[in-house]
């Protein structure tokens, strides 16, 4: 177990295997006269290959942290570096490029595009890359195979079960070979059996060296991760290291 101070120390030390690094990050919203501090001087660092769970009660800043890490929202203070790039300095187009190249998203409600079939949904992140890989479709098919969706490629999302839709979402998050996979309550809409299957998949991905940040409020889900970050009032309250993860070179 590490204290937040210890974490800050760790953040400031060597950064060669760091994927995401947040130093004193703040996110303040103004709602009329009221100021809401969703993130309040948060320090957080994710090394390559780590599997983090972020826990906290409602309003603790988990979702805001995920949005900031996913380059969907900009911090109002502090520094956020993703894959060595200072996110604050990037333009809107550059942030989009970072999202399509460096990040993979998995949402609680799957968030597949209803009018596209399974294969097209998996390919969406590559649609928006300036120079997409030539083997994109082969990669998408291989991922669909791996997720057990090989017979469902031409199906629309609404023709799939919840578990299958989430598998499509996982395949989509992997198709661009991202530096960081961000999952937001990814098992929240699934029954316990399907949840277990999906969590097993995350374990597999982690074992393969994927870097994952998984926001959840369920303890049994969080305990699958290598590290747990407990948040409270927009700060890192406690960090639990469940198992050591060997740093991996990309």
């Amino acid at each position: 177990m590490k204290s937040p101070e210890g974490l800050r120390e760790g953040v400031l030390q060597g950064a060669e295997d760091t994927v995401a690094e947040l130093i004193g990050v703040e996110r303040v919203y103004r709602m009329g006269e009221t100021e809401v501090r969703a993130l309040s001087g948060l320090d957080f660092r994710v090394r390559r290959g780590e599997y983090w769970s972020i826990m906290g009660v409602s309003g603790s800043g988990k979702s805001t942290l995920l949005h900031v890490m996913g380059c969907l929202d900009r911090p109002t203070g502090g520094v956020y570096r993703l894959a060595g790039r200072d996110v604050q300095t990037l333009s809107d187009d550059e942030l989009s490029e970072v999202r399509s190249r460096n990040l993979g998203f998995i949402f609680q409600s799957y968030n597949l595009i209803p009018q596209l079939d399974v294969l097209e949904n998996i390919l969406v992140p590559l649609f928006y890359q300036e120079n997409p890989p030539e083997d994109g479709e082969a990669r998408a098919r291989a991922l669909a195979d791996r997720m057990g969706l090989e017979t469902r490629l031409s199906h629309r999302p609404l023709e799939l079960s919840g578990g299958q839709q989430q598998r499509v979402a996982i395949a989509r998050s992997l198709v661009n070979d991202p530096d960081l996979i961000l999952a937001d309550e990814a098992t929240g809409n699934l029954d316990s059996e399907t949840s277990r299957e999906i969590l097993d998949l995350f374990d597999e991905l982690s074992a393969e060296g994927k870097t994952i940040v998984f926001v959840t409020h369920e303890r049994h889900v969080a305990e699958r991760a290598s590290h747990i970050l407990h948040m409270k009032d927009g700060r890192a309250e406690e960090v639990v290291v469940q198992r050591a993860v060997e740093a991996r070179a990309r």
Partner: protein
Amino acid sequence: MIAGGLWRTVRTGMKSLALHKLRSLLTTLGVLFGTSSVISMLAIGEGASYEAQEQIKLLGSQNVILRSVKPLDDPNQGNQRSRVVTYGLTDEDLERIEETFPGTSGVVPVREIVGEVRYLDRATDARVLATRPEHQTLTGRLVVEGRFLTSEDERTLNNVCVLGTEVARFLAPLESLLGKRIKIGSDYYTVVGTLAPRLRLSEDRPTAGSDVTGEVFIPFETARKWYGRLQVRMRAGSFDMEEVDLHEIVVAVDRPENVPVVADASREMLRRFHGQKKDYEVVVPLELLARAEETKRIFNVVLGSIAGISLLVGGIGIMNVMLATVTERTREIGIRRALGARKRHIVTQFLVETVCLSIGGGTLGVALGLLIPLLVERFADLVTIVTPAAPLLAFAISAGVGVLFGLYPAWRAAEMDPVEALRHE
């Protein structure tokens, strides 16, 4: 790659539209009717203008035409039932023009003879015109069979005639009348030629009391010999006696710029010699042509405005639906932005969908717009002309409407905050 990307966007757009088939179809209706009205209105306008111009051209665009006009009846003058009315252009007028007018290349008198035209048991009240051989050159009529009148006919006072196609077809639908003798009034004439039909005009209908349109030409001097100056017109309950030298004088002008000069000179000359008696009119086809052009322009502006308003309404309809679609698909916009879509990708996505709708409507509109003129021609008996530019213009406008009215919804979609969009239920 860019082309591939655009094609994928178009495909995705079509799929999105196909999810709500009825809504998409209803949305296209505005553009469909707008486009078809542009094409059909232009076709009707073009047809009307063409007719007017053809009628004017028949008069000869480089001619000035002087016509006799019967003055209004004067109730104080003699017995209504039997008086002789003397009016119109005179042989002296013709002489003066021939001798004194500069800038003319030909002057042809025309006299209209009253009389039934008959061949065997078929008879009609066609217009019988006594004129000189130059009439053909001045009015550009073509001979399809035989010949037109010649100076030899004038000299020998031959009883010959040239028939308009319509008259020839009416009198003898199945045989050629060349060399045959027909009866005009009480005299027999040998047919020496048939003229080519004029281009069909919607006003070419038999007039009341007549079975057929068209004319019969006889030599001017022959008519003078047989008919004299006095003519009797029989009407129900009364008869008119008219004393007219010439019904028309066609003055051919050598250069177009001299047409107004000759027209003014004619007006001045007639005013001076006919005094207060307004028994003539001067028709200048070139002036009519200019007036017809102006009318066409006004007609096109009015029709264009009506069509433009319907396209505007169609465009607003599309924008309305697209704004609703953007709100409905807020979450999808958030997903796409989260997965790396730039603002321009979102703009393109929605713009492509709007353009697909408007082009879809435009294509159906072009088809309907080509069909309507055919129906108008078939059932309303109006001449319509679809110029190749009309469907292209209408199609381009419909695509333009798509872009114009799609921009705002697309911009609204692109400007959404991705986080807010993802939260949208």
